[in-house]
């Protein structure tokens, strides 16, 4: 099977990141792991953005993924990483299958607000639930991998490698999806939904399919975040968390499959250094930097918005 340039590049980066995990300092691998997990959720947001829908409630599935891991590990006693990931995906797909039927009726700001409302409802349910620790959440036990329990220092490295591998696979799959027929029709839906209908396709079910895929990826991102921090709380479903995902998605743009990951790493780096050097005004620095990138980084970011763009070569 021949790999084209982008696929080759993605593969090379995945291998490089994995190798770097052995040499880099722990804080760096931790930062990268969190950023890649976040990037996965952002991929979910971007998939929906390609059809013109902005989800302000992707935190819903991010949180389901995290709590899936937590429930499996603490309440069901199962610490196998793969089972936890599987559970996270299954639960989020089940929820998405039901909610998607409602959500696909809406567009624009109403889709955004409804998605926000749904994630805040989950937030409310979790906050009310004392058994799950309310707003404090709870800590998640360390993962095992098909029966093998890594030692305390290997633990973080192994979860990092798992994250890199999953991100790499996700990137490849999304790339293929983007360039397949189905993927390109998503962009067509964004441009003009009515024409897609007249072509004989159903935008609604395509959006539904995207919604499911986005839900699954976001749950994986949530699960990996739980692996990294060892802690889950209802904040994962709060609207400001979802807002961050949207922010990063717009930063990276929707044209290139690696963009969400790069933007997520950029966001994490800027935030960490802003927090360290200006603990009193880090939000200001973050806002200014991001505004500057939006205004001065030309072209690429605009491709999201120019609806009269010609088809990409």
């Amino acid at each position: 099977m021949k790999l084209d340039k982008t696929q080759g590049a993605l593969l090379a980066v995945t291998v490089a990141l994995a190798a770097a995990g052995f040499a880099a300092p722990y804080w760096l691998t931790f930062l990268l792991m969190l950023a890649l997990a976040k990037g996965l959720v952002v991929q979910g947001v971007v998939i929906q953005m390609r059809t013109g829908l902005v989800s302000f409630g992707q935190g819903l599935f991010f949180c389901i993924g995290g709590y899936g891991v937590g429930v499996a590990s603490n309440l069901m006693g199962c610490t196998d990483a793969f089972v936890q990931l599987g559970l996270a995906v299954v639960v989020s797909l089940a929820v998405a299958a039901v909610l998607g039927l409602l959500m696909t009726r809406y567009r624009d700001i109403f889709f955004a607000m409804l998605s926000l409302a749904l994630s805040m409802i989950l937030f409310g349910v979790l906050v009310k639930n004392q058994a799950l620790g309310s707003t404090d959440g709870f800590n998640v036990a360390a993962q095992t991998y098909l029966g093998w329990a890594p030692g305390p220092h290997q633990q973080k490295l192994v979860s990092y490698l798992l994250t890199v591998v999953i991100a790499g696979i996700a990137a490849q799959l999304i790339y293929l999806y983007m360039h397949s027929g189905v993927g390109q029709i998503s962009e067509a839906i964004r441009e003009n939904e009515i024409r897609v209908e007249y072509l004989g396709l159903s935008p609604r079910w395509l959006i539904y399919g995207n919604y499911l895929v986005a839900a699954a990826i976001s749950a994986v991102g949530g699960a990996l975040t739980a692996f990294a921090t060892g802690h889950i709380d209802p904040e994962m479903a709060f609207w400001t968390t979802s807002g961050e995902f949207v922010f990063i998605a717009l930063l990276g743009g929707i044209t290139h499959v690696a963009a969400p990951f790069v933007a997520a790493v950029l966001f994490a780096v800027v935030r960490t250094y802003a927090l360290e050097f200006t603990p009193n005004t880090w939000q200001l620095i973050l806002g200014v930097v991001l505004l500057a990138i939006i205004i001065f980084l030309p072209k690429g970011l605009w491709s999201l918005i120019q609806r009269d763009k010609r088809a990409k070569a």
Partner: protein
Amino acid sequence: MGVNALKKLTATLVSALALTAASSGAFAAENGKFRLGIVTFLSGGAAGPFGVPSVNGAKVLVDALNEGKVPAPYGLKGINGLEIETVVIDENGGTTKQVEEFRNLAERQKVDAVIGYISSGDCLAVSPVAEELGVPTVFFDCGTSRLFEENKNPKYVFRTGPDAVIDNISAARYLIDTGRKVDSIAGVNQNYSWGQDSWADFKATMLALKPGTKVAAEQFPKLFQGQYGAEISALSVAKPDVVHSSFWGGDMEALVLQGSARGLFDGRTGILTTGESGLDRFKGQAPNGLIIGARGPFGALQPKTPLSEWFTKAYNAKTELFPTYPTSKMAQAILGLKAAAEKGAGKPGVMPTKDQILAGFKGLTYESVAGKVEMSRAGGHQALQDITYGEYQFDKKSGKASLANLKTYSGECVMPPDNMVAQEWIKAGFPGAKCN
């Protein structure tokens, strides 16, 4: 973004990260100073009432320590003769962020110890990471009873502030011991774990001490809601004898203002478990007789010792304000770390090792700005102290607020033993409690 822009950005990012990774060696605390990480709220709603007073208290104390100006028994400069340098981190931004920043403190900044954390969620999340990374960590304020329920064999984690369960058990006892009418109780608490736990502990204690007490209303408005019109109406309609609230910060001030304006506290007793942090701010808006707690012998309730008087004066000179309980608790944590490090190190002038600090801290008894502190719970990792409640009195002529009818409960009376969860201990009737 366009593909070329993306490539350029990635290249820049990678080189930036590689550079920082390589240069992180320069941050190592092998410079003969004791590097202390301090984590507290510098932005958001908790900054004003808690974060900023605590970080100011830290600054005042650390500067004085480095100049050797602190009275006995803390005459040694800095920590064990070594100058203290601080790295201050904002606790705002969510738990995941705080776990990341703790790791940065430990691995990039290579701090020798961390003091901080007001939010219970952050404490719970950071505790296993502190144990994993082996960094001596002192929680100075968070009150969750779950801390040592989940971390059953703590090694690196210490808490010099009391468990929040004592706030509410002693609140209930104070009401009963001062002879107030408690036939029906109502609560308005913020809808998150702090508010929910506070109300649960208070309610359970009232029901245990006076079975048959009616629960007239339970309100849980959103954190930072600010407007309590409907809640105040609902409470007034329910006509309770006692209104309990664990509100803090802006919410607490708003509740007191709006409640007083509408007569919520007329003819009944209000009790604010964290009221002391607003003592100088209520002015005439809080009714006389409102019961106020300081979560321990802190702030305005500091016992008068040379150390505490010195601290109050020094803090006032720097900030023109008086210490409130977050300030006292931060000072208490720093002094505890110092005492532990110096005890463990044995001789002055050497950098104490981690193990020495741990050995020194476990089970330590030391003198703080808030009196004597005994690290006697959770296997020597949790502090036990008394707690005082009093009545708010405002003198219109002088414009000064004070606390009257003080009553102190010893830690042994209101703190559950290590092997029992708070709710179990309360429901079992407080076995083993030594009250006077």
